[in-house]
């Protein structure tokens, strides 16, 4: 029997062999062993929360990237590339690279020189405790929610792919994460993120290699996609393999977006907001051993980020080209998750967009390789949980407990609090996972909530860093106005779907396009309100802005190092490769 037929006809996508199970069990044993080994090196606050601030640029850079390279991300964007074509690669290129380089060269010196423990901590130094309290509480809330969603998503994937019980998956993964983060703190989380980075590449790289061999190379894949989509009467089938040439107007590409939404909404606001102000990723860089390492870490992360579409976007495109229903021989058309998971969808054996990566994994990977691929997915989910939990622990301990609840807390008590909060955070995440299980639409709202906060926060932080005239009142009101306007636009479209034509400038705009434009407008509103209010309120004296604002912060010079050791040189190399990639896939 055709193996693909077996896979699609069975209740689970794949069946593990004993060697696959050995590989999975070995991974769990290894991460627990690492946690136990690192316990003795997490005795002070700096050790537990900031990994001793002694990471090399390579370790910080890989952890910085891995914190964002969870399985939700991998499977979600592989699914999006199946749905939207190569346009999904924008989230890895223009939606990441310029922001990462901007973080490295412009923003990192301020974060690093002021020695803050967190992004809310920076807001405290720049705008006072009000802005810090609101941002830290929002962030803590979001991280445990995201951790729970990661946990739930992992359990669902394990059920769909392997037929594992939901409770079993949640229990095993959460206890493992709680153990290794509580034992080793951020250092342990970072060790596992680096391990996860290699596992993901080892487990996923074979899919595009074998897929391209089967499809007959890039041009063969393009021809097959064109043929398949024409067969399905999909509009603009050629647009699925072009990055920029179809962005002239909203209706000529599958995402319903134009170049302005991608460049300004995604490139200038969403990605800048995420990569420069989300503490989950910034925490990894703040733990670097010196300023040069802190600047190099995002550049190293950017170099690898440019390669990620090869293991995420390409498998989605290959799925579009190669996946066929083994019963009928017709093109296998994946559908939205809610359709696939409906009783009718289940009865017809439909698969959701997000299942394209496991489907491709099952297509090419036999015993052993399958175990490695599944381990990479598990590692990605657990790393996502651990990243959220370690960031939550730091923000809770320093920005809520240490600032609002017990200002005189000793270093020892903070470490003790950190270990307990790690365990408590995991238990809250378990609760969230079960909450999500019963109200699946909450995941959509969480994504929206995330964008409500991140986009305006970028406006506040960037003005705070680069414009010394920005006042505490301006920063706070701008952040509030940006967030409220984002919520308002979201609600407006929910109540009146016709409002999409105003918010996203076109009725063709799909969810992602709406997110881009909403982020752009709310960031602009935040900036305008901050500027206007700042001109009407009293600024802080220069003496209070030292080390947090451009022009008042002495940045350590690196004149005496060779050009190959300078971050700006490597940032230029990454920027040139980025431009070449845009031209190649234009």
């Amino acid at each position, binding site marked *: *029997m055709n*193996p*693909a037929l*077996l896979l699609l006809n069975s209740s689970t996508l794949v069946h593990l*062999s004993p*060697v696959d199970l*050995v*590989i999975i069990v*070995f*991974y769990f044993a*290894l991460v627990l062993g*690492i946690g136990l*080994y*690192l316990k*003795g*090196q997490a005795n002070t606050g700096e050790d537990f929360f900031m*990994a*001793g601030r*002694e*990471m*090399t640029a*390579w*370790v*910080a850079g890989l952890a910085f990237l891995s914190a964002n390279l969870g399985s939700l991300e991998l499977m979600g964007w592989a699914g999006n590339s199946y749905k939207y074509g190569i346009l999904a690669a924008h989230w890895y290129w223009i939606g990441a690279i310029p922001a990462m380089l901007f973080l490295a060269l412009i923003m990192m010196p301020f974060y690093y020189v002021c020695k803050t423990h967190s992004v809310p901590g920076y807001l405290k130094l720049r705008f006072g405790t009000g802005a810090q309290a609101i941002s830290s509480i929002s962030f803590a809330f979001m991280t445990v929610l995201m951790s729970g969603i990661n946990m739930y998503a992992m359990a669902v994937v394990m059920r769909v792919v392997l037929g594992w019980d939901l409770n079993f998956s949640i229990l095993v993964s959460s206890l493992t994460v709680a153990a290794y983060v509580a034992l080793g703190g951020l*250092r342990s989380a*970072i*060790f596992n993120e*680096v*391990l996860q980075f*290699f*596992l993901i590449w*080892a487990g996923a790289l*074979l899919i595009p290699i*074998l897929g391209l*061999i*089967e499809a007959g190379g890039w041009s063969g894949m393009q021809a097959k996609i064109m043929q398949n989509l024409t067969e399905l009467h999909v509009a603009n089938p050629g647009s699925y393999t072009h990055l920029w040439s179809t962005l002239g107007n909203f209706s000529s590409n599958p995402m319903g977006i134009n170049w302005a939404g991608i460049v300004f909404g995604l490139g200038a606001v969403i990605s800048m907001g995420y990569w420069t102000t989300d503490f989950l990723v910034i925490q990894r860089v703040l*733990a670097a*051993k010196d300023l040069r390492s802190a600047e190099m870490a995002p550049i190293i992360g950017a170099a690898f980020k440019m390669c990620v579409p090869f293991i995420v976007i390409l498998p989605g495109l290959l799925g579009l080209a190669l996946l066929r229903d083994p019963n009928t021989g017709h093109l296998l058309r994946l559908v939205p998750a809610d359709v696939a998971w409906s009783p009718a969808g289940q009865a017809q054996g439909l698969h959701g967009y997000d299942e394209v990566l496991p489907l491709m994994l*099952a*297509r*090419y*990977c*036999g*015993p*052993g*390789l399958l*175990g*490695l691929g599944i*381990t990479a997915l598990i590692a990605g989910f657990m790393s996502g949980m651990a990243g959220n939990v370690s960031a939550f622990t730091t923000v809770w301990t320093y920005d809520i407990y240490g600032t609002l609840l017990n200002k005189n807390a000793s270093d020892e008590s903070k470490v003790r609090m950190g270990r307990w909060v790690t365990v408590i955070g995991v238990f809250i995440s378990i609760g969230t996972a079960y909450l999500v299980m019963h109200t699946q639409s909450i995941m959509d709202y969480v994504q929206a909530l995330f964008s409500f906060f991140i986009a305006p926060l970028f406006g506040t932080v960037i003005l705070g860093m680069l414009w010394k005239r920005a006042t505490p009142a301006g920063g706070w009101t701008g952040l509030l106005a940006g967030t409220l306007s984002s919520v308002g636009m979201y609600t407006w479209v929910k109540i009146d779907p016709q409002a999409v034509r105003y918010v996203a400038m076109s009725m063709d705009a799909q969810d992602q396009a709406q997110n881009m434009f909403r982020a752009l407008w709310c960031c602009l509103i935040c900036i305008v309100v901050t500027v206007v209010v700042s001109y009407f309120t009293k600024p802080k004296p220069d003496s209070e802005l030292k080390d947090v604002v451009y022009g008042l912060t002495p940045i350590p010079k690196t004149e005496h190092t060779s050009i190959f050791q300078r971050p700006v040189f490597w940032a230029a190399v990454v920027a040139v490769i980025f431009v070449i990639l845009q031209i190649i896939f234009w």
Partner: protein
Amino acid sequence: MKTGGALSIWFFTGLCLGVNGLLIFITGIYEIIHPPQHEVVLYNLHANVWWGAILLIFGALYAIRFSPARERKRMSANT
């Protein structure tokens, strides 16, 4: 941080990839001797053999290069 004490992060990475590579390589050889009943697509390329070998070599190089003994020697030389 590179070392995290006597055991380097790169040692753990090498160990993980090396062990997985060895298991995948052995499974691939076994599959050549006893072909499976249900073959994956492009089975004829025996991806598990060469991919397992690549992981094994890469992992072994890292595990040896950053082995605890070498790390201790390097640390004592630095002090």
